[in-house]
């Protein structure tokens, strides 16, 4: 019997390669779906078996590649398998050729590998596989976007590599447990005398990891790749990209806590009730929420909107992680789950829209609710979930997060989190109205509803949004298992934090009752005049395009103008300038050094001889 | 001048080469002699068409006798030439009156012309600049008054008498 973990990790890759090699329409889709279904099935089977210490190793000679299943990794693998499977269903409809099957499934393998890795090198290897595969998905659509993504990713990856190599050199092992105990020992050593890792080294390590995981998670100001990359690829794949891949960054931060948290805490101490180093993460997370949210509001392209929204949401998770209490961690994990669920759902919906209409900007859309009722229904669940409307899963996680942050007396972070929710409403309203309601352009009259695979994918995610929203205790139970103690109390429907309580069932009941009453009123009340969405009213004055504040075009222009000063500070541009500078520098240098004149080259030789001579005597 | 038979030419070449070999090794060791003979035979086989046209006829006793007499005659001329040159080099006023003169030879064979040209080059203040058919053009460090005439034929006659004629009487016998 092949090890379950190996199956989880390698089935998608195998399926991807097979699908790519066979490249027969229909067959490759089937193989792809199986490739994503097998891990999901195994994850489901392994539920509750994390304590059994399931592990797996491949001896590569170069080193031992090890995998192990823990509660934490089960949780993340679960998210990845679920969202990945749904995204793969989406791909059945939207994938353009075997190329995408190969790399989509390869990136899934990467993510599984990252979550299941039991040593730093394995972690890094799968991190790279995942990055590379996702990059290839973007490359096909847009060279510029993919380059930006890849360069930032690789900068992050190499930062991680240096950090890992550094730890390896000091500790002599890649193994998580060995590294962890080494750091804990070192923490004691620090407290009672001299430590192996100096303060500067630790700061460097932390910085390197911050860059490494920050890039992947989309932490401000390393987020600039995400909007382009998320939008410039297959939108079904984006569901996986945003839902799964960005979680590896989160997972990385958590691993950093686990491996060297104690040591860092001992070295750098606390800021208020959060560890100092964590506060940096949290603060950047807060900025990420704000920046992502504001920019999301200003987008004219739905793909971009959700890309920025995604960034913003990951900010929440990072705040939770940064605050560093058990509860905030749990909140972060919880929100990671809900974010994967609702953002996955969103992107599948976007994929459906793009697939059916071929359009991506608000200006070209409108009134689709009528034409795509199922998709609209799914999107509506996602909207509610993201906006944090009970009893959907988004509310539960956000509520825990709020409570966790506020209870720690961290007002700035609290404010940031709150602001994030507000701005979330702003861009969701626009999306809701501009795409689904209002006047429908005539060329969208023939738009059909979601194709079956996409529909199934959305349905699965929607189901989880609802079920886990109503029964958040399911999640809480898993989270408590990870921490080995009951941090969030309550039962299946009730979350009890000790100082606050949330009863999803009760809220559901109120909601149903409320809706029933409203429906009753609607049915019994005065007959409203039904206006077809194609019916347009225009009062006498012609609308000028320059300042056309329809909901579909430049709706938030005033906001944009207000923020114009801030918007000019663009990290994206800074990075691009750095890139251009490097290229120019390379060009100048190469033309200067390799000027073609062999006599200059002979002088180089003389120079080296001179150095040797001066050095030698 | 007609060509001798191949055998004659080959044998002549072989003899000359083997003699040179003997001079080079100056050894009567049978190993050297055997090998030298074989080698001379091989090299002669390759080179005799270039080396000689007249073959064994070169070894005619009269020729050899004249050649033997020519050596001291020429050496004497050469030493005289060198003393003359020494005088011109060491003389503070550097007494020179150079020019290119035109001579004519009666020699017909190429080896004869070569010998003449080399002899000229090595003797009194003369260097053979070019040989074109029977015409020799010679750089002369002291053109005598007799040769300074404008009339071509007179000039050639005067120059030839001074330069080529002294050697020709020997060379004619040796090479013609």
């Amino acid at each position, binding site marked *: 019997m092949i090890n379950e973990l190996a199956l989880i990790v390698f089935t998608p890759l195998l399926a991807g390669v097979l699908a790519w090699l066979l490249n027969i329409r229909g067959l490759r889709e089937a193989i792809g779906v199986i490739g994503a279904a097998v891990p999901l099935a195994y994850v489901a089977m392994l539920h509750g078996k994390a304590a059994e210490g399931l592990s797996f190793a491949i001896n590569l000679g170069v080193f031992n590649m090890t995998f192990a299943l823990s509660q934490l990794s089960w949780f993340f693998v679960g998210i990845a398998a679920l969202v990945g499977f749904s995204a793969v269903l989406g791909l059945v409809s939207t994938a353009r050729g075997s190329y995408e099957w190969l790399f989509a499934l390869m990136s899934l393998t990467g993510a599984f590998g990252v979550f299941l890795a039991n040593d730093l090198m394995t972690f890094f290897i799968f991190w790279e596989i995942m990055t590379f595969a996702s990059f290839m998905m973007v490359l096909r659509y847009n060279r510029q976007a993919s380059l930006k993504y890849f360069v930032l990713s690789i900068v992050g990856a190499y930062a991680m590599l240096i950090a890992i190599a550094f730890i390896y050199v000091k500790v002599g092992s890649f193994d998580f447990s060995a590294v962890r105990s080494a750091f804990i020992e070192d923490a004691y050593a620090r407290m009672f005398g001299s430590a192996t890792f100096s303060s500067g080294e630790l700061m460097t390590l932390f910085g390197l990891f911050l860059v490494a995981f920050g890039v992947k998670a989309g932490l401000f100001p390393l987020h600039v790749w995400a909007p382009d990359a998320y939008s410039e690829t297959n939108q079904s794949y984006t569901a996986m990209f945003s839902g799964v891949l960005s979680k590896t960054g989160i997972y990385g931060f958590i691993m950093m806590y686990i491996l060297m948290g104690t040591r860092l805490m001992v070295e750098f101490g606390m800021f208020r009730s959060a560890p100092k180093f964590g506060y940096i993460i949290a603060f950047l997370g807060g900025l990420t929420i704000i920046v992502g949210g504001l920019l999301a509001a200003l987008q004219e392209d739905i793909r971009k909107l959700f890309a920025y929204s995604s960034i913003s949401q990951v900010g929440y998770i990072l705040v939770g992680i940064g605050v560093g209490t058990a509860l905030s961690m749990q909140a972060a994990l919880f929100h990671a789950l809900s974010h994967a669920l609702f953002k996955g759902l969103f992107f599948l919906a976007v994929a459906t829209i793009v697939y059916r209409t071929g359009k991506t900007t608000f200006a070209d859309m409108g009134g689709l609710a009528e034409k795509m009722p199922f998709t609209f229904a799914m999107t509506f669940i996602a909207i509610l979930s993201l906006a944090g409307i009970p009893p959907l899963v988004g509310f539960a996680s956000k509520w825990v997060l709020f409570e966790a942050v506020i209870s720690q007396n961290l007002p700035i972070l609290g404010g940031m989190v709150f602001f994030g929710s507000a701005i979330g409403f702003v861009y969701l309203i626009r999306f809701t109205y501009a795409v689904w309601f209002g006047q429908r352009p005539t060329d969208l009259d023939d738009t059909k509803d979601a194709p079956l695979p996409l529909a199934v994918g959305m349905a699965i995610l929607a189901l989880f949004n609802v079920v886990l929203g109503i029964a958040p205790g399911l999640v809480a139970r898993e989270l408590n298992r990870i921490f080995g103690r009951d941090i969030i109390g309550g039962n299946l429907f009730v979350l009890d934090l000790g100082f606050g309580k949330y009863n999803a069932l009760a809220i559901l009941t109120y909601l149903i009752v409320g809706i029933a009453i409203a429906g009753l009123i609607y049915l019994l009340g005065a007959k409203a005049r039904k206006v077809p969405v194609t019916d347009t009213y225009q009062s006498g004055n012609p609308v000028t395009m320059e300042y056309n504040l329809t909901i579909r075009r430049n709706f938030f222009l005033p906001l944009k103008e207000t923020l114009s000063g801030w918007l000019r500070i663009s990290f994206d541009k800074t990075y691009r300038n750095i890139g251009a500078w490097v290229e120019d520098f390379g060009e100048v240098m190469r033309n200067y050094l390799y000027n073609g004149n*062999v006599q200059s080259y002979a002088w180089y030789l003389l120079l080296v001889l001179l150095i040797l001579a001066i050095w030698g005597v | 001048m007609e060509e001798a038979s191949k055998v004659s030419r080959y044998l002549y070449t072989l003899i000359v080469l083997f003699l040179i070999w003997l001079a080079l090794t100056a050894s009567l060791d049978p190993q050297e002699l055997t090998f030298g003979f074989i080698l001379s035979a091989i090299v002669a086989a390759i080179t005799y068409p270039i080396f000689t046209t007249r073959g064994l006829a070169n070894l005619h006793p009269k020729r050899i006798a004249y050649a033997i007499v020519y050596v001291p005659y020429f050496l004497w001329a050469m030493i005289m030439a060198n003393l003359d040159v020494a005088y011109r080099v060491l003389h503070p006023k550097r007494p020179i009156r150079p020019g290119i003169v035109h001579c004519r030879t009666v020699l017909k064979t190429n080896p004869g012309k070569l010998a003449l040209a080399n002899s000229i080059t090595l003797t009194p203040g003369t260097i053979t600049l070019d040989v074109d058919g029977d015409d020799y053009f010679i750089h002369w460090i002291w053109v005598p008054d007799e040769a300074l005439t404008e009339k071509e034929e007179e000039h050639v006659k005067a120059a030839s008498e001074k330069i080529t004629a002294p050697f020709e009487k020997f060379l004619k016998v040796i090479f013609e």
Partner: protein
Amino acid sequence: MNGQYASLLIALPLISAFFVPLIKGLGDRAVKYYLILVTAVQVGIAGWVFREVYSTGKPIIVMAGGWNPPVGINLYIGHFAALFVVIVALTSFFMAIFSAKAIETEPTDKYAMLFLLLMLGATGMIATGDIFNLFVFMEITAISAYALTAYNKTGEAAEASLKYMILGGIGSSFFLVGVALLYGATGTLNMAQLAQLAGGINATVAQVSLALIIFGLAVEAELFPLNAWAPDAYQAAPHPITAMFSAFVVKAGLYAMARILYILSAASGWADITRLLIVLGTLTVIVGELSALRQRDVKRMIAYSSIAQVGLIAVALALGTADGVSAGVFHMVNHAIVKALLFLAVGYVGITLGGTAVENFEGLGKRMPLTAFSITVGAVAVMGIPLFNVFWSKVRIILAAMDANYTWVVALVLAASVVEAVYYIRLIHTMWFTGEGERIHENIAIGTIALFLALLIIFIGLYPDYFWTLSQKAGQDIFNVVQYVKNVPLMGVGS
């Protein structure tokens, strides 16, 4: 079979090269097939030598003329040489096949001879145990490389060749001065005996000779700023030859540098030289990558990339640790495979589409999918993506460098790798996602080689154990000088 038969590695290419004039009359085709045949036999001999060395674990010491070293010259075919003669032979074999298609310029018979002698030179450099003999083989390699660089007889080819000759000439002169000093100080040219006597050499002599020898070899090993000939030569040489340059000619130089470095590790001034080499190696990486960044000619771009990788290998070899050397050797192996593939594929594009300018690569994915795929695999491998071979050796080098406290080197090298990723990604994008074109029939033989190399890249990427073990043994062969000296049956002359 007697280990002395390993001398066939030298004898076969030589006698085969000398034989070419005798069969030249049979025509170009015949000469090309003959070349393939000879290289195939060479692969066989190399394979036998490899098996012999790795199965017994003992090096083969070929004693020319039957004289024990240091009286005679010996070949030392240890784990490194045994591994690399296979690489040399195999690459040559592939390139011989490629040459059948790629070489149209006459005179083909001369090409075949020079080709064989280039292979011979590199083999000898790797195998020899005598420092002056190393010089001879280095010159054999270099002069055949000069000739082959200019083989296309264009002005550019002659220019590149002349640059190569001038810089190579300076390098080899100073190398020889170093050898002269070393000989003057020890009275021997045998490397094993030199290793024994190195500690006792007068400090100044040791410093100067070591510096000069390394300087000379660094020109061949393409270290910045001594490598300015390299991009031109790579660009101008016939495509199969470029592949050989990158796959093993430069490797032979690197090996020689490492071998002598460790042979003389007892010499004073050693640490300074290694430090300088690391600095130069790092600069090589950076300058190479930056120079490749905006290249419009893909062959030249890959040439710069190759130079950059060579710098990385030099860094690894100069770290002065067993891990570093092993990692360097591993990278040599991987890089040889990858660059053979890349230059093969790029060269094939060059001869099929009339040039290697980047414009010719637009739509290559549609026109020549197999070739484009090969280039992609190669490019991805060089970038250091896991599941491809180069990743493992890069990681090993980085670990070794960190271990030796060269964090700044690692940081700079990795920064340069980012640049490398950028231009390779651009190439991949150009091939697959721009341009259009009719499908062109791709040569089966070349396609098979490319596919084989690509699969090898992936195989090592998935299962690096075997090659890593080989590399470790080969690295030990270079690093463990004590063992090296023990292995050479030195007779008691003097010492």
